[in-house]
């Protein structure tokens, strides 16, 4: 850290890259995870403000919303960008898709169940968006403190996906052989002998599911 100005520049580049690639707003605690060194909230906020300044006058701006910081297109550019949309249909963010997948495959579930599986908080917006779309609804409440709502998918959901029942959704069990174990080190540059160093890893979770399912 002999040239702090350069380091700060690097920190800003990392922040920018992370914010530009994230599908969801990023809150300060998440942004801190980006760095090895401990960054104070103050320093981070200063950097974000600086970054916001850098983007002034561009078609995209850095904004601070309830759940954190995100880049978004300025409304004035909307009309230009909209001209492209007939070609590229929009897509839901990963958070929405995962929430939907959990509700579809594990229904009926509470928001807590979804959070338990996803490992992160599920924003009200996501649930509301899916409800407004008519794809999920509340089918009851779990009788625990707080009586959380139990969500399930609707007929509209099945119709929109063009299936008649949940059974027709893609089976998940056969994904097993196609993927390597998550978090496995990248396949090492293999030497000539035909057997890769790392034993072909069997994806554990799917296996577990299969066992659980057949148990």
């Amino acid at each position, binding site marked *: 850290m002999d040239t702090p100005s350069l380091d700060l520049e690097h920190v800003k580049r990392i922040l920018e890259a992370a914010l530009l*690639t994230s599908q969801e707003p990023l809150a300060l605690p998440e942004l801190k995870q980006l760095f090895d060194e401990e960054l104070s909230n103050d320093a981070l906020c200063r950097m974000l403000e600086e970054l916001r300044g850098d983007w002034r006058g561009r078609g995209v701006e850095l904004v601070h919303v309830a759940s954190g910081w995100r880049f978004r297109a300025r409304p004035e550019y909307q009309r230009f960008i909209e001209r492209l949309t007939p070609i590229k249909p929009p*897509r839901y963010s990963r958070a929405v898709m995962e929430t939907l997948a959990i509700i579809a495959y594990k229904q009926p579930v509470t928001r807590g169940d979804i959070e338990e599986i996803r*490992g992160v908080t599920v924003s009200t917006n996501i649930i509301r968006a899916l409800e407004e779309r008519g794809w999920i609804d509340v089918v009851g409440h779990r009788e625990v403190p707080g009586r959380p709502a139990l969500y399930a998918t609707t007929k509209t959901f099945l119709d929109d996906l063009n299936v008649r029942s949940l059974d027709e959704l893609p089976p998940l069990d056969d994904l097993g052989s196609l993927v390597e174990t998550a978090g496995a080190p990248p396949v090492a540059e293999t030497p000539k002998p035909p057997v890769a160093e790392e034993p072909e890893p069997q994806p554990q979770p799917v296996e577990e599911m299969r066992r659980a399912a057949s148990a």
Partner: protein
Amino acid sequence: MSEIAVAPIAKVYGQPVLEVPQDLYIPPDALEVFLEQFEGPLDLLLYLIRKENTDVLDIPMSKLTGQYLEYVEMMRTRSLELAAEYLLMAAMLIEIKSRMLLPRPAIEGLEADPRAELVRRLLEYERMKLAAQRLNELPQAGRDFSLVHVLFDETAAGRLPDVNAADLRMAWLALLTRAAVNRHHRITREQLSVREHMSRILRRLQEARYIEFKELFKPEHGIAVLVVTFLALLELARESLVELTQQAAYGSLYVKLKTGHLAAVE
């Protein structure tokens, strides 16, 4: 066999596996891991050839055939699932070996070598195998680099995103992948139809406070539906979402929403 220092061909439980099977003791489990790594008979043959630094263009057939059969036998005795392709290859090797014993007319040249087709296939496979490795080393979107996703509020333009069943599957796969990282999140999947019927029963209980047990079962829906409905009911009871009550022995069973203390206070 062991005079040449061979690079470890596999690591099993952190231990490098150098020679298989004679020269090194390998725990039976490890051997299975080792044997299961081959992508097929061509892969196994290439391994045997490369291990000995043999010239692919001049394969000693009888030695190779012997080694190959040894491996196949090992797989068989360990009752590993032995694909038919392995046996087919064994037959082919034996055939080539026996043809090698016959005198060959010199004029026919290259084509006359009984090994020609095998060599062609080995080289072609190896070429693709190496290509696959290199392809895998190329940075991939999502895996090795991220794409930019700046929000553009499309719902303002009144367009709703499309979702198809494959998207859902991919989302689930992503969850599984993460679940493997966070071990404590156990994700299990029951039969989907059971979960569907759980939702269905809950929906009905929203309308009526309780339902007679047998009302849930309509024989005209067929046995499969009856079974699934029953399983759904058991699961609902297990998850404390419904209560099954019976006033008297052999009396009617009733299904009602589980009401907790909180509900009682309301």
